[in-house]
């Protein structure tokens, strides 16, 4: 039985450095190649030595697919391709290809220039790496080689995020990357057709959460910001430069517009400028509203949101500032936080997930005194709010995706083990399919039962259709007759005549014969004649021929008479019919007649015997 093997090098029962190896139908594919935010040592990148100890990866991998531009999905890419060595194709969508190098470069700068690490990939390496990228369009089937094909589906989550279907023959795997089943202010919801893959590899960040209605969250968020502004306070929203930030910007921008608010909104970091540019460009990847209105006004051209300057933080009066990074662990968001933390009128809103050990994580857990570098402490007086704007599917969304795709097996990655366990139970219970959750380095194996395609000649098909009963009974299997020819890796079903012709064989006739002894004093031809006339009188409506060579043919059944050597009055009747006659009975109306004829002949002959005997 063929097998599909899935081995996570990262993201197995863990969040971060997504990297999953899939072997399917003799092909090896790497899905995502990310880094881990929580580590600064070798654990930061996936362990590529799992694939090969030394030597390049090219010969072991058929292709690499990147689902979206977040660093935990693409951060290790230049390291893998340039430093470990991989020259094969790397697939990603157009927006990902555009934005990914910006983030990689930013990441490189922070690690090399700020932290002073050596032995890290260089700008040139990023460029070289990006040259190996083949862009993908949504729903476009790309042939990696003759057998392997991939297809991207919309995944929501961030601009350009895609789910990928990998297909070899009739076996297939779908990898979701990160996805979102509820649309937000700038992106639509993930969508997939009923592709029924053998394995669906899904993220499970929010395996145990069913989120409130999105609008509820948005309203809460806007209300909190609005109230704080009206009080004259300052609002800090730590975000990562791309993704959630744009959604929140649009949310605040439209709210400001609708409510005619005047307080300034600032956005820190120069990275955004570049990225917003791409958001403006890739309008087709956004949601219905933005797609429909961009002719009048591109929603990403913000009216109320301006670039932030460090000096603005000390300005009096209310303001809203988006600052990076999102977990308050470093950079501008941390600086602003330190400045504003002392005033209880101010507010910090954490719109997403925070990794353990970051300041974001600490303050969310209610810590009011923070230790800073240099042994100083910081009193946190401002209000701390958490608002989940992470664009990951929640438990219900995951279930919904499973329902949409109808996979035969499930495999969970990108989540915490305990939560996965819980969801696994739910999935197995609800859909009664197997669900796997391998840890990093563990291999999950799924045996598949691929269907083998066979070519059939149209003539044969039509002939068989004509023989079968009336339509419709598509669900019932139907037997048909033909010859299966295996030749040069292809299977063909042809009619037997054609098969004989192709194979250069002669047709052999198979005939059944039976002998009937009867007592008849007449000569052989007379007996035959008597049988002939008798049959003729009994079997009306059948063709009965008396052939000159001393045989009687009833349809295709041959009757011969011979007398035994010792006793001339004992005649031996030879009945002979072909193999087909018997066989055709099963499905052919004509052949059933033939069988009836045969029986009739036998009956007739038996009676004849009695007649003869009476004489």
């Amino acid at each position: 039985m063929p097998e599909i093997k899935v081995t996570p090098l990262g993201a197995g029962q863990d969040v971060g450095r997504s990297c999953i190896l899939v072997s399917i139908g003799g092909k090896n594919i790497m899905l995502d190649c990310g880094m881990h935010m929580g580590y600064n040592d070798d654990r930061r990148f996936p362990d590529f030595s799992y694939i090969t100890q030394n030597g390049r990866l090219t010969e072991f991998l058929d292709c690499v697919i990147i689902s979206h531009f977040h660093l935990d999905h693409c951060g290790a890419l230049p390291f893998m391709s340039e430093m470990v060595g991989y020259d094969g194709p790397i697939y990603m969508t157009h927006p990902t290809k555009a934005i990914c190098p910006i983030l990689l470069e930013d990441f490189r700068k922070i690690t090399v220039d700020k932290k002073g690490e050596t032995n890290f990939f260089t700008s040139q390496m990023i460029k070289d790496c990006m040259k190996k990228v083949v862009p993908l369009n949504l729903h476009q089937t790309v042939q990696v080689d003759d057998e392997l094909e991939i297809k991207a589906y919309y995944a929501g989550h961030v601009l350009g995020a895609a789910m990928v279907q990998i297909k070899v023959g009739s076996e297939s795997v779908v990898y979701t990357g990160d996805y979102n089943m509820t649309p937000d202010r700038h992106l639509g919801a993930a969508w997939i057709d009923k592709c029924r893959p053998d394995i669906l590899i899904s993220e499970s960040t929010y395996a145990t959460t069913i989120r409130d209605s999105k609008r509820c969250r948005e309203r809460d968020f806007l209300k909190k910001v609005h109230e704080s502004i009206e009080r004259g306070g300052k609002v800090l929203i730590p975000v990562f430069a791309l993704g959630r930030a744009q959604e929140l910007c649009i949310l605040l921008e439209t709210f400001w517009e609708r409510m005619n608010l005047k307080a300034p909104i600032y956005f820190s970091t120069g990275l955004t400028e570049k990225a917003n540019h791409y958001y403006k460009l890739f309008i087709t990847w956004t949601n219905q509203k933005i797609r429909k209105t961009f002719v009048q006004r591109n929603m990403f051209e913000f009216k109320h949101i301006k670039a932030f300057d460090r000096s603005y933080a000390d300005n009096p009066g209310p303001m809203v500032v988006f600052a990076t990074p999102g977990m308050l662990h470093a950079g501008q968001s941390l600086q602003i936080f330190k400045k504003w933390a002392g005033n209880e009128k101010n507010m910090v809103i954490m719109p997403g997930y925070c990794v353990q050990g970051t300041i974001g994580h600490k303050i969310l857990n209610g810590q009011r005194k923070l230790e800073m570098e240099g042994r100083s402490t910081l009193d946190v007086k401002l209000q701390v709010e958490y608002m989940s704007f992470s664009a990951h599917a929640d438990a219900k969304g995951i279930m919904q995706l499973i329902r949409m795709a109808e996979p035969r097996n499930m495999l969970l990655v990108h989540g915490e083990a305990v939560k996965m366990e819980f969801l696994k139970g739910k999935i197995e219970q609800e859909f009664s399919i197997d669900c796997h959750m391998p840890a990093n380095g563990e291999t999950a194996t799924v045996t598949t039962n691929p269907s083998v395609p066979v070519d059939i000649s149209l003539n044969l098909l039509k002939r068989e259709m004509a023989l079968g009963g009336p339509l419709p009974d598509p669900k019932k299997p139907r037997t048909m007759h033909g010859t299966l020819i295996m030749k040069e890796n292809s299977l063909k079903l042809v009619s037997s005549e054609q098969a004989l012709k192709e194979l250069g064989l002669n047709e052999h006739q198979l005939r059944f014969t039976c002998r009937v002894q009867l007592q008849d004093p007449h000569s052989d031809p007379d007996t035959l004649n008597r049988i002939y006339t008798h049959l003729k009188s009994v079997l009306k409506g059948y063709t009965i021929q008396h052939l000159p060579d001393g045989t009687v043919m009833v349809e295709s059944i041959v009757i011969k008479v011979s007398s035994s050597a010792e006793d001339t009055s004992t005649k031996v009747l030879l009945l002979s019919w072909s193999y087909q006659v018997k066989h055709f009975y099963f499905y052919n109306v004509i052949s059933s007649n033939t069988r009836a004829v045969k029986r009739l002949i036998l009956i007739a002959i038996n009676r004849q015997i009695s007649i003869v005997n009476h004489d």
Partner: protein
Amino acid sequence: FPRSEEAPAKKLRLSKPSKSAALHIDLCKATNSTDALQYLLHFARKPVEVESVEGVVRILLEHYYKETDNSVRLKIASLLGLLSKTQGFSPDCIVDDAINTLNNEKSHQVLAQLLDTLLVIGTQLPESPTVRQRLIEMACKHLSDTYFGVRNKCLKLLGCLGMADTPLTKDNDGPGASLGLLRDIQSIISDFFGDQDPRVRTAAIKAMLQLHERRIKIHEIIYDQACRLLSDDYEQVRSAAVQMVWVLSQLYPESIVPIPSSNEEIRLVDDAFGKISHMVSDGSWMVRVQAAKTLGSMLQVSHHFLEQTLDKKLMSDLRRKRTAHERAKELFTSGEFSSGRKWADDAPKEKLDTNTVNLIASGACGAFVHGLEDEMFEVRIAAVEALSQLARSSASFAEKCLDFLVDMFNDEIEEVRLQSIHVLREISTHITLREDQLDTVLAVLEDSSRDIREALHELICYTNVSTKECIQLALLELLKNLNKYPTDRNSVWKCLKFLGSRHPTLVLPLVPELLSTHPYFDTPEPDMDDPAYIAVLVLVFNAAKSCPTMPALFSDHTFRHYAYLRDSLSHLVPPLRLPGNGLDLVDSRCGSGSVESAQLFLQQSLNRVSTIQNLEAPGAQDLLNFTIRDLQRLGELQTELAGAADFCATYLRCQLLLMKALQEKLWNMAVPLCLKQNVTATAAAQQILEETYKLEFLYSGLESRQVATIHHVRLQAKALQLILTARTRQGLDPLISSCEKFLQDIESFQRLFVAELPHLQDSFVDKLLELMPRLSSCKPVEMVKILLATLRLSGLLQLRLPEQIHRATATIIEPTGESDNPLRFTTGLVVALDIDATLEHVQDPQNTVKVQVLYPDGQSHVIHPKPSDFRKPGPDRHRLITQVYLSHTAWTEPSQIEVRLLLAYSSSSTSLSSSSASKLGWSDSIDSLPPPEAAVEGTIPFSKPVKVYIMPKPARR
């Protein structure tokens, strides 16, 4: 068949005899199939008359048998279908031929087309069961075709013609057989629910739905099959299946179906509801829209199912525990999943005992939550509408869906926001807003879109609140709104009026604070022109209406302000029973007359008038005069009856005018002596004509009876005009033509109101119609004489009042005409004037309402507002918010222009729309109809003119 209107009638007649022959020649000439196809295509563009249809069909069939090319045969088949649709042609003569061709046809495409043709024939012959029977047999025979198109058409045919309960009397099988066939048809069709082609599956469901539409009861067994199709791979199948499941749930709501994998059972409608809810998270948005819409109409669903559609945390909720008690406890307290609202509360909790049953598929829960946050706004709107329908029928559901609707106020698409506000208004009778909900609702008052704000004001008018804090909050926000958007003044005041009158007891404790009175100290008198102060007063006075203790809290100036506001804003400030000045005048006026007595009075007045037999009867004029006066007064007093009273008064005024004009002694005088008299009579005739147009077009709710009466008056006026023309003009030629025209008028009257003629006995028209043969043959002079005599002798036609009659009214809110600052602009350029008006009881305002601008020099412009400028805030109410562009040459002084609204009418539009005429016109062949009478078009001013100061300045160079 394309019956092109522009084809001149004469040409048709000429080509008639040669139609089939020409076709025959054309087809014979065709050397190859392409040519033949061209001829056929060309032929198809022209209409064919009823008489020649059969001939053409024969020719076509003849050619059909000879033709070898599929495309030509296909075209012929489609032509046969089109021809069978020709009105007046009965296609039973071609049934045999069509069936015959069907039997010999090999091409699948042509087969499909032929079946389509058969369907047309079948639908044209609804009365012939034998034809039906044969067609159905044909369809069944071809159902096993391998081509999907043929199967599709067969199913369609079965759906459209499948026998209902018409017994086959001719056949010896008897009615029992038809019953057998009925069952057969449904099972035959349902066999194809499992067809391999999705298009055929869709066609099968559609055919089944078609049967349902033809009132054949679908069997309950179909339900299971339809449910299976809900998970089909193809969206069109799923979409049709949703409809099918819905139909069955309406047919058998109370049937019991088992829950799979358990031994429990639920009602079918609940099961269907669950399944359709599930489809709200379907992959295709078309299906989602369909499902969301459908949910709204499933009103029989049980409560606990309904409520689950609002709770997303289905996985634990939807398991039904064995006892109902446990279940109730469980319903809204799910412990298993975190909401994502709080940090770190998503650690998995203990698993619930899973020894339970899935009540409805878990995906179905929270259907509305999903629908409301769908990506496509079409789905969201459908979900909001469905919510409103369900909420209207269930108060408890209304209560629960409140939060979700309020959330929708924050949607990104304005249409959705608006819709949800409207919906909330519709269900607001069921609900009382809590403070936090009110807070969210009121937050929208700051919205910059005027539509949204006004919809919200409308909503607040109907809202119930529970505490005095809520009132205070609402007032505060409304004042803030007033401050931010001063143009909302009227709307805000109106809103406060309702808020006050709805919650008098809640306003009472707030009064001292609101009016800033103090027990010991006099407070400064607030500014009477401050809109905010007026707003507060409106609230307080309306509350005081049903709270007699409140006026005791007022200070002196409040009473003065009351008197002022009662005069200036009487529609906002109710009459109050104030201490000291006894009963208010208004109070006594309104208290006595109820609607019933007024109605009675109206009827009595009309009855009294009807006693006038003859227009010349003595005292008749006085009676009319008094009645008109009474009616006018009644209209002022009783606003509910204003429309009816006005209508009657105007009608009677017409009669009075007519009477006066006829009663003049002038008719006996010699022509030259009565020139002056003539002038008044002419003016009267003209005025009557105008009034009749007003009567016809300004009032809504008229029935054909009243329209006939109005037309009758118009005919009388026209007769009067004709007589006057005869007397004044000397020439004979113009007289002849106007006589002819009058005769035409009579004819068209007769045509239009055939049904009404019995009610018009003894009337002018009745008599004229009797004399018709004579009139049409006699000379003009004689005719005029007859007319005069009949006119004077004919009685007053009694007016019957319809149930509801409303006068179209328009009020221009903006501009107010109060501004002293002229609008200045440069000559030759334009200035935009904002117009804001409310229209009541105007039908089709997009086409009829115009804005007229009258300049001091007599120039007038009529502007057609864009259709999008009209909004419909309520039934029979429209709002026109538009801009008109003004321009003029330079003036030296600022001067006033007048702006008013006009109601445009066209008599041709009514003659077509009135019931009898419309069908007649199209079924007759065009040339048999007389040319339509020249449409009288005109406008009626129906709003008070508003004066606006403008000042075009000469351009500076």
